[in-house]
């Protein structure tokens, strides 16, 4: 009796996890991410959070962060989380496009995918790889959020008990944010020949799709709903929200991911391996 769908999903995604954490290439990517993130954490994030904490303690009506348009950071009770939220909303979609670019393309070009589909269906490989990359990103997001939590505790250890709900909200939301970007890369990866091509196409599609839909919506406001198709469309609105309010827009990345994955699965099923 062949193993079931979820058994294969687990095996394939765990193999991707092994690729990220136990191979030289994967470790190199992780170290690069860790170095860049430490820099962001120790300089811009720490300084902005300290500035915010000072503004709060001085009860200033209008501070530097309001001046640069980041007034919504004040909605977060812990300043570090407010700054983390703004930074993460910019950084993680970019990380996602880079990290998730090679879900199936280089394996297909090399022929390795043939060895795998002899033992598993194309659907299982497609969704297993997607689940694996999501798992890796979820771990990176969790690690980054916990490092920010540690920074906040270093400033004020009394935050330990009150910070957990916001920490969880941040992690869940960021996972939802990267979901459609990862789905877009899964779809592109099923079609193109290399990770580089997938990244280039993602940037082109994202830019042109956003430009085109915004153009249509400007002249025909009835078409404004098409903006829902642009991955990251909700990011601007998300920056204005805090805590569990951020889940109000969760339906957008979920809907986008569903559409993109359905399209990617369709490509994968027809693609010559």
């Amino acid at each position, binding site marked *: 009796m*062949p193993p079931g769908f979820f058994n294969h999903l687990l095996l394939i995604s765990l193999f991707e996890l092994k690729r990220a954490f136990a191979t030289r290439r994967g470790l190199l990517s992780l170290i690069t991410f860790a170095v860049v993130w430490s820099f962001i954490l120790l300089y811009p994030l720490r300084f902005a959070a300290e500035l915010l904490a000072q503004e709060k303690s001085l009860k200033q009506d209008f501070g530097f962060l309001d001046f640069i348009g980041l007034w919504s950071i004040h909605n977060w009770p812990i300043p570090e989380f407010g700054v983390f939220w703004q930074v993460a909303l910019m950084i993680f979609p970019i990380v996602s496009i880079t990290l998730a670019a090679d879900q199936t393309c280089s394996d297909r070009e090399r022929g390795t995918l043939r060895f*795998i589909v002899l033992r598993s*269906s194309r659907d299982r490989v497609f969704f297993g790889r997607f689940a694996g990359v999501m798992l890796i990103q979820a771990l990176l997001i969790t690690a980054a959020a916990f490092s920010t939590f540690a920074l906040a505790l270093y400033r004020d250890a009394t935050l330990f008990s009150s910070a957990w709900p916001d920490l969880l909200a941040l992690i869940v939301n960021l996972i939802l944010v990267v979901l459609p970007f990862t789905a877009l890369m899964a779809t592109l990866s099923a079609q193109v020949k290399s990770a580089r091509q997938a990244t280039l196409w993602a940037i082109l599609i994202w830019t042109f799709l956003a430009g085109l839909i915004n153009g249509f919506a400007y002249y025909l406001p009835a078409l404004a709903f098409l903006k829902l198709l642009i991955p990251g469309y909700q990011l601007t609105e998300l920056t204005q929200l805090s805590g569990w309010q951020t889940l109000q827009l969760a339906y957008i990345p979920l809907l986008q991911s569903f559409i993109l994955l359905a399209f990617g699965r369709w490509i994968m099923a027809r693609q010559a391996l």
Partner: protein
Amino acid sequence: MKSPIIQCQQLSHAYVGKVALSNVTFELDAGEPVGLVGPNGAGKTTLLNILSGFLRPTSGQVRLFGHSPGAVPLNGKVSALPQDARLDPSFTVTEQLVFYARLQGMARQQAMLEAGRVLDAFALKEVAHEKPPVLSHGMAKRVAIAQALIGLPALVLLDEPTAGLDPVNVRTVRAVIAELTSTTTFIISSHDLAELDRLCQQVLLLENGRLQIETIREDEQPAASRFITLQMEPCPALDLMASLKALDGVVQVTNPQKNEFIVEYNPGVQLNMDQLLMQVIHSHHWHYRQLSHGKTLEEKLFFKG
């Protein structure tokens, strides 16, 4: 009732502007290895890719054990050596074979044992913990054949299994195939006709995308004429042909290539033609290398006449 393991109905495939397969229809039962031959570009790899589920045919139907290629119930039952496919360079050979065995439903411990078994069969134990980029072409090829045998599948499709291997390893591959023929049906695509002649009872000949089935062994039924292929040490070809033609029962003697002669004879007139030929060779102090009944596969398939 025994049902065929492969059923192809009106199978066609076209790449942009080029027909690779045209209305291929055939059925194969489980049994002895089957050869798949044809000139370059005849559609052999396309046919194997369709059977393996790597490629969707443009039209027509394919069923393996009653299922479409790539269907989940074929997991572990059908395997293949795809042409030019390489393993993932990031993981060791064992890590990948264990992963494949686990996808076939084996527990971790069993998968480790199975990976060891197939690597051992091809004398690859010493590279088990190496990564693919350090393997030579021959080693990588043997690893790719080894992965096809994980879990003893019922049908194995091998695309050019011995191309690029040294004679010792060709023999190993041949021995492994011969050992498994009682449980596994092999379809072997190859240009090495001598190899197929040794291993296969039946050959599928693809030419310009069209297929015909040939039986290799000489028919036991009485025939109007039979053939003997004679490979000689250097000798005067014209004298030899004249001497053979003079024998009672010989219909025709041809010399398709240097030192190779095909004798067509009437078995009704002379049943023991082989003995007669050897007497002639001996009496002229010539020396032969090989005498075999029937035509070579090459003659049969590509130089009919």
